[in-house]
């Protein structure tokens, strides 16, 4: 799943051949804490009898990570950036059944050279 960043470029590298970073605008970050509903949880424990991918959880985490990215992108737009570079993801367990998804990066103004 590619992230829909609506106009803001995302990347996890910090050196871009053919582009120039004209302005650094500081760290931006977005996070979300999500839990799944009991029904999904129950289905997942059934699915785990036979193993394999737990699709319900995969979807849940994908949605949550997209939301974290959305919030990061909103911050970047607010400071007037057109790209977020050096994006990192991290996941933390808050409590049983809840996970925090965090995305952070550096907001910059990136321009094509020549």
């Amino acid at each position: 799943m590619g992230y829909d960043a609506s106009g803001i470029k995302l990347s996890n590298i910090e050196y871009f051949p053919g582009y120039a970073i004209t302005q650094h605008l500081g760290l931006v970050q977005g996070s979300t804490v999500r839990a799944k509903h009991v029904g999904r949880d129950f289905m997942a424990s059934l699915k785990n009898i036979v193993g394999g991918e737990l699709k319900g959880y995969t979807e849940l985490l994908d949605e949550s990570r997209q939301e974290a990215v959305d919030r990061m992108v909103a911050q970047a737009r607010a400071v007037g950036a057109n790209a977020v570079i050096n994006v990192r993801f991290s996941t933390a367990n808050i409590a049983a059944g809840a996970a925090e998804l965090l995305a952070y990066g550096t907001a910059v103004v990136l321009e094509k050279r020549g």
Partner: protein
Amino acid sequence: MGEIIALGIAVILLIVGFVFGSIGQSQHYRSIKIREFRLRRILLFNEKMPPAQYAGQEFTLVCGSVIMGCDYFRQMIAGLKGLFGGRLGSFEAMLDRGRREAILRMKEDAERMGANAIFNVRLETSTLSFSQQGNRKGDKGLACAELMAYGTAWRAPADADANHPQGR
């Protein structure tokens, strides 16, 4: 009587887990191999700097993630194996499948934007304590892990074959 029923359920779960787990695993590996072959032209690097040939090309963040579980039978085998130590083949297979699946999803993402290389690939594994809350079986949680791969995909330079990064 109650114990016999409980034992019977456990045995049935083990058999179901073993049969369907094995079928699922071999089907998954077959699909992984086919897709890996189809996507072999997309190159992965975990170095940060794309070579100069990619100057000015489009790039984007691509990502693939999957949560893999381990079937009931293999979990039990791993539990027994854990008493003696050594390799836990069940979990090795689970993580291997998950990681290859995550990389494939990332590559499929890159393919959609017409990229031919992904730089700064990072692989992450996290365990999620999704289990305790919904698990009716008590202390044992789900054996599951999230495998995630992400990187920056770059669109091929105009003269892709001549400037192929492998030919540097």
